[in-house]
């Protein structure tokens, strides 16, 4: 039985050696997650801004829906995307199942509601402050949305980072639609799950350490953003 200390030592050595397999897994993780977060922002930022800034019938319902979807269970999302992409599913002919694209789709579905719901709150608060001034100036709807998004930029960057944090640590959905295929769809979380069950603790722990470092970096970035926003009174 290996001691925890010796496994940790081996894990750190593995990271420092720049092991090719390890780097490939980390790179794919980051590629899938960053792509998903960008896609989620492209959908979620305007969606959240529209719900946050405009009054329309069903707005309360939309808000409740967005907030509820924030807590989507990843395995359910994985299952639904699996069914859609599987050979007999509606999107089966695209042949996307067990590809990184499938993982991006699943993560985008998970992160978009998070981005949209948090954006709605941020934009609604800012709009309360700006709306009379904007109406006085005669600001049109498109300019208004653009200005609100721009002026909330610091808060929205932390929103995107929150989405990134959630996606990079997610395992349930990507393991279902990605299948954890070596050199194809293995990402950090799925590899940890698999290698731990196989007893390959060095690789699992090495990836665990990398994930933790990423989490710390994300939080440091959030705090740095908050501080610089506060300095310019932009918070």
């Amino acid at each position: 039985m290996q001691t925890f200390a010796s496994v940790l030592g081996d894990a750190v050595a593995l990271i420092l050696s720049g092991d090719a397999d390890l780097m490939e897994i980390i790179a794919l993780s980051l590629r899938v997650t960053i792509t998903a977060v960008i896609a989620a922002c492209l959908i979620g930022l305007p969606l959240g801004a529209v719900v946050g800034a405009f009054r329309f019938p069903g707005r309360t319902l939309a808000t409740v829906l967005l907030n509820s979807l924030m807590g989507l269970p990843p395995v359910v999302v994985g299952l639904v995307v699996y069914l859609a992409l599987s050979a007999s599913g509606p999107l089966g002919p695209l042949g996307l199942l067990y590809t990184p694209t499938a993982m991006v789709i699943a993560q985008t579905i998970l992160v978009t509601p998070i981005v949209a719901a948090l954006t709605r709150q941020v934009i609604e608060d800012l709009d309360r402050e700006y709306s009379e001034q904007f109406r006085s100036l005669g600001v049109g709807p498109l300019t208004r949305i653009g200005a609100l998004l721009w002026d909330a930029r610091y808060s929205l960057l932390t929103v995107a980072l929150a989405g990134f944090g959630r996606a990079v640590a997610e395992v349930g959905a990507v393991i279902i639609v990605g299948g954890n295929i070596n050199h194809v769809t293995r990402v950090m979380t799925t590899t940890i799950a698999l290698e731990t069950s196989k007893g390959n603790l060095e690789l699992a722990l090495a990836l665990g350490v990398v994930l933790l470092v990423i989490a710390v970096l994300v939080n440091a970035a959030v705090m740095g953003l908050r501080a610089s926003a506060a300095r310019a009174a932009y918070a």
Partner: protein
Amino acid sequence: MREAAARTEVEDAASIAAAAVPALLEAQGLRLEIGGKRLIDGIDIRIGQGRKTMIMGANGAGKSLLLRLLHGLIVPTAGRMTWRGGPLDKSARRAQAMVFQRPVMLRRSVLANLAFALKVRGLRGPAREARIAEALDKAQLGDLARSPARVLSGGEQQRLALARALACDPELLFLDEPTASLDPASTQAIESLIADASRRGVTVVMVSHDLGQARRLADDIVFLQAGRVAESGPASRVLCSPRSEAAGAWLEGRLFLDGQGAQG
């Protein structure tokens, strides 16, 4: 008494002069009810072209609400408004600007705050640059052009808000207590910007608590009490010989609050 007679003559002359000025904005029977409360209760008001009209009254009298109604930010429960005797359309709204009691600063630089307003008003390129430079210069904010607007002092923010409103080249400018809580130097800077705009022909409607300010700036005074006009007329007349109990008490410095509760 001869003195009294002479004064009446002066008053009448002022009233006649005021009435001779064409109305830029006129409201009749303006009423606003929220939650069953009549916050604005049948106001008739006439804003003379090129005049500086000062709206006065106790906290909670409805001054800010009246300003918002006149500027079209709130839809009145009843009443009608005219612009130069005609309908109050979109172009009339575009000819107005407002500075709020608490200036709204975008989370951008001083320069970008000005640029945004001008962009909305359709100014582009060199014309916009020139207008921005002029506004910065007039408001003495040139050195702060690149600073985030929200780190400016209260006086500087108020100056920027006023400069931004004036840069839009309004015919009618609404100001809600533009010098409340400012020190004398800042107050003077704001007042001279207002006086300067007025000299260039901008019609001004401003809310103020400050009797000295009324003496320095007002052409006409509208005195509100509990959502109604207690008294209105040329400043020279209202300030010297108020006819209403409310305005008289105010001028004598007797403090009072409206029953509706105090609020800034």
